[in-house]
């Protein structure tokens, strides 16, 4: 049990009559990158909001870092950081001030030093004294990620971390995420970009119509869902093909 970072059992959530999560199950191992894949409206953000204590589930249980999200929300919040869908930086503050603010709220020792280290690490030293409102989309996202790393929470939630970024900024974010996982952190990310999951994730789960319809490593998924068409060239199916094959099958039933 020690090496499980997140455990979700039969999680359910509905908004009025709309059922978003219909009994979701999965586990995330410590130190891994777990990608939750799904189309828009599949319930990815709802799931993240429950795991980060922003939302209460209707049924089922979820534990993060060994703490139940419903009964120990404060402990859960100490174990994680959330990078939401939109770069949640304070635009009126400079990059450095944003980091110092988070550092003080997380009660780390020497907030200034922590801020400067992160600015260097994320290549924001030159822009440190500029207001975040002047940053480009990529810089803002980097600052956003840097803010999530203050206080070194063991589990990072990234909700569509590259949505709206240009390809260059995307690759930058990927690099950072890989480094984080190499450093022993658990990363839980959602994405609608299949290549992103393929690039980053150790473990992939596909959320479709409120349920996890497939889950495993990329290799496992490839084995389970071989491409239907006959090809003369030897080729591994891309995750995109796997995804579309599964969705297609589900809808035929």
């Amino acid at each position, binding site marked *: 049990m020690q090496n499980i970072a997140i455990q979700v059992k039969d999680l359910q959530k509905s908004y009025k009559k709309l059922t978003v999560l219909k009994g979701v199950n999965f586990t995330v191992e410590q130190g891994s990158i777990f990608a939750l894949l799904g189309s828009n409206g599949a319930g990815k953000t709802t799931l993240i909001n429950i795991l*980060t*204590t*922003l939302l209460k589930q209707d049924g089922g249980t979820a534990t993060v870092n060994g703490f139940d999200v419903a*009964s*120990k*929300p*404060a*402990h859960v*919040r*100490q174990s*994680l*950081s*959330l990078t*939401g*869908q*939109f*770069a*949640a*930086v*304070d*635009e*009126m*503050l400079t990059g450095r*001030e944003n980091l110092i*603010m*988070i550092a*003080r*709220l*997380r*009660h780390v020792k020497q907030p200034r030093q922590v801020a400067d280290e992160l600015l260097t690490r994320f290549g924001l030293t030159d822009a440190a004294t500029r*207001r975040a409102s002047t940053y480009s989309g990529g810089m803002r996202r980097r600052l956003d990620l840097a*803010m999530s790393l203050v206080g070194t929470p063991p589990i990072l*939630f990234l909700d569509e971390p590259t949505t709206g970024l240009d390809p260059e900024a995307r690759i930058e974010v990927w690099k950072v995420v890989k480094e984080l996982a190499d450093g022993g952190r658990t990363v839980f990310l959602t994405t609608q970009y299949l290549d992103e999951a393929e690039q980053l994730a150790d473990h992939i789960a596909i959320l479709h119509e409120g349920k996890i319809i497939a889950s495993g490593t990329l290799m496992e998924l490839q084995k389970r869902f071989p491409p239907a068409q006959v090809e003369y060239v030897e080729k591994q199916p891309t995750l995109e093909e796997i995804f579309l094959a599964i969705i297609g099958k589900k809808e035929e039933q």
Partner: protein
Amino acid sequence: METIQNHFFSDLSVMLGRSMRHIFRSMDTIITVTITPIAIMLLFVYVFGGAIQTGTANYVNYLLPGILLIAIASGISYTALRLFTDVQRGIFERFRSMPIAPSTILWGHVLTSLVSNAISVVVIMLVALLMGFRSSAGILSWLTVVGILALFTLALTWVAVIPGLTAKSTDGAAAFSYPLIFLPFISSAFVPTRSMPLVVRVFAENQPVTAIVNTIRALLSGQPVSQEIWVALAWCVGILIVAYIFAMRAYQKRV
């Protein structure tokens, strides 16, 4: 219940520092909440004042309480705006997912409103002093004035929290304050209500601003306060309670 170390005051001071920075970096905020009320005061004293018959020799003394209420009403519209921006930009959710005392997220904005309005009230009073404002009030009267203004600010701040949390657009978040800024004009703030046509006069004499203005004016000029102080306090406390209930309901819905 889980027990975890609570850093309410240190978290609150971070939130306060952050919002105060927003204010000092926003020229728009400073102009609207301090310079505009001062401009209105200058306009009324030096342009219209000569034609206004209030029955008092010093029109600045007469005018000041109403100007302060206008400043506070425009001040709290920025509280709504700052809260709205936090919610929209996702920093609200970031804070909520962090291990901080959850109540500091709203209280940070409320405290900022109290502090920033206190600053603009002091600045406006200093300008009024230069324009000839004089007060014969004793310490106790001054403390009562400070108390009423703080209560008024707190009540309107909780009103502002509601659109701050529920508005769909920036304009919507700020629009609710326009009637509040306008209320002093239809009160005893600028001219005595007895000069008004009956319908307007009935409205003016029974809306909260008149009672508050009259009370503050009496306190500052060292005159005995009438029963109106209870009306003024009842309005402030009433608005505060109702607004707080609805604000908390809006907050629960957001959460």
